[in-house]
């Protein structure tokens, strides 16, 4: 089927472009931007399972990002622990905080859950500001570099891209199999999800903890990339940004939110007046997408192509093949 081959082909070309980026990127600034996109994508890929697949509206993931960043800056910076180990611990702590936030709030209806996550990110900021001797309070902390091969910008770019590809592979494995179907059933029809036996709360919690881990890892790498973190780096605007990338990219897909992340990270940097608008731009984009094409821009091309040339959906009558059905019903193992 040609759509399948074109899909794998385009993925291949994409991979080559990404791998060779340091060589065709104009200068170190664009390399820094590419590394930033990869770091954001590590978080967004995990968050995509929560928002895009399971349909849980979490607008507080900047809190988990900042937990990852501060854990890394404290462990690898202040305490001098090996950075790679610190990344693991940041991811672990992100997962634990995801669990702590998810347990009480995932049982709540949509709006309650959204408010709980927003409140969570505000609380994290408050605690970071208050614990001056641990987090440096308003002054913030330096984010240390990684050891030898990854201390150069190109080395660091390959490190974060490798981790990003790994996380993408994980979410792709989940999304295309039974767990992915279960998540989407929770999003689109919780009653049907129950009917087939999906443990709705447990599944939501697993997705949320997974997104906590990726947010923790992303936070650690973010601290190293930015070389310095302060409380005002982790603003609500970032939560909106993560969330809008998914909605705009298209829920229930992986490539859509990835393209959303690339475009929405690069756009404000290239078009400087957009940077000033900040939140207004994200809000406007979100409103337009929700009203015009809620399935996201990724799906928009599909929908338009369907509307433009509605292939005559020839209605074949339903003709059961009874003995094939009987044989299928015999299968018990």
């Amino acid at each position, binding site marked *: 089927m040609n759509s399948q081959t074109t899909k794998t082909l385009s993925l291949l070309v994409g991979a080559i472009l990404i791998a060779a980026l340091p060589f065709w990127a104009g200068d170190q*600034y664009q390399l*820094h931007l590419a590394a930033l996109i990869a770091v954001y994508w590590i978080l967004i890929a995990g968050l995509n399972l929560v928002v895009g697949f399971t349909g849980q509206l979490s607008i507080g993931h900047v809190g988990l990002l900042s937990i990852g960043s501060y854990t890394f800056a404290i462990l690898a910076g202040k305490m001098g622990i090996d950075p790679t180990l610190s990344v693991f611990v940041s991811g672990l702590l992100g997962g634990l905080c995801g669990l702590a936030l998810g347990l009480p709030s995932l049982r709540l209806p949509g709006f309650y859950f959204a408010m709980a996550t927003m409140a969570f990110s505000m609380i994290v900021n408050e605690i970071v500001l208050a614990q001056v001797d641990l987090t440096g*309070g*308003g002054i*913030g902390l330096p984010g240390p570099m990684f050891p030898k091969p990854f201390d150069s910008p190109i080395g660091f770019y390959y490190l974060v891209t490798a981790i990003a590809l790994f996380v993408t592979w994980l979410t792709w494995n989940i999304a295309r199999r039974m767990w992915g179907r279960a998540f989407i059933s929770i999003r689109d029809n919780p009653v049907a999800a129950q009917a087939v036996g999906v443990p709705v709360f447990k599944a939501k919690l697993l997705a949320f903890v997974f997104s906590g881990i990726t947010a923790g890892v992303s936070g650690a790498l973010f601290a190293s990339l930015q070389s310095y973190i302060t409380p*005002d*780096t982790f603003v609500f605007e970032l939560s909106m940004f993560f969330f809008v990338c998914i909605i705009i990219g298209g829920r229930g897909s992986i490539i859509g939110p990835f393209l959303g992340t690339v475009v929405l990270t690069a756009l404000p940097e290239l078009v400087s007046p957009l940077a000033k608008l900040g939140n207004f731009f994200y809000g406007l984009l979100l409103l337009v997408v929700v009203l015009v094409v809620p399935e996201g821009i990724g799906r928009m091309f599909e929908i338009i192509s369907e509307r433009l040339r509605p292939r005559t959906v020839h209605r074949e009558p339903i003709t059961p093949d009874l003995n094939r059905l009987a044989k299928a019903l015999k299968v018990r193992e």
Partner: protein
Amino acid sequence: MLRLTKLAVRLSLATALVVSATSTIAADTIKIGWLSSLTGALSSAAIAENQGVQLAVDEINKSGGILGRQIELLTRDTAGDPTKAVNFAQQLAFSDKVHFVIGPVNSGEGLAAVPILARAGVPNLVIGAIDELIDPEKYPRAFRVINTNRQWISTANDYAIKVLKKSKVAVIADTSGYGTASAKTAIELLEKAGVKPVYTVLVDNNKTDLTDEMNKARAAGADVVMPWTAATGMLGRLLNARGEIGWNVPVVGHPAIMAAQIRQLLNKPEYWQNAYAAGYVSTTFGSNGKLPERTQQLVDKIRPKLGGGEIDILFWWVAMGYDTVKIIEHAIKTAGSTDAAALQKVLENTRDYKGVYATYTWTTTERNGFPDSNMAVNQANTFKDGSFKLAPR
């Protein structure tokens, strides 16, 4: 070997795929990056400094530029967000390949961007006050134009302890990067002068009511209140709280206490009395009621640009902005080129360079150019045309 092959690959690729769209107009302009937080919290300082910077750039370009080369000013609005400051610092250093960078303005952003510029080897005029921004070894090409936070605090402390003869100090700072650092330095310097603060608190600069804090300070027996925050809103509310609880205690602290915006925030004009702030000799009216000669010249030059009427912003910010560009002009002229190492050498040997805001001196070991002698303490409510009278001795 690796570096060579990488270079070769890059060259071939670069010629084949022309990607970078950065403008490549006449290569000989002098590019100055200006990291200013024109929007977002604490934007008042940046907006004033920007006036001085623009005036100096226009002036120099009109008179033929530096060494015959025009100045191209690349202004980036960091909106007070450290992430944007880092991204723009990277852009200015590697994409625009600027010869000099002024800023960033706020401390939080400075802490994030100064290391990036240092790693890129770009000469950087630092206009953030907190001490952690300057380090001759780690950031060899970072020279501070503004005074240090320590100078502000020790000037204010000396005035409170030696002139006003107070001994029970209440330190109130905000929770921003600047506030946290200042509170620590203030307590350290006070204890060195043998005074232990009776009450210290960090407050969110958006908190709308400081009555609680002032009541607690009074209960702790404080006889002078020393606020360390650049947020004019918070200072206005602090002075209002002082007035409303009827506690006539002197307030001595950050220069923002003298900012014109304070006047609109006060419930009553007299709430601005008995308030003093660290200031500068360059923006203090002498006993003859006149400003220092260089300051007056700049005031006359810039007045038409600020609407011709009375200047309603803190003029020392404007003067500092103006000086940063003049220092760059001095450095390039003396070095005869825009080579970073040469600029560094020139600045390291600059002695008593006469700017408007101050007279600067840098050495190989001292990157803070502002002399203690240029500090002064002004009386807050004597704001006129951007400058102040000296506080009573």
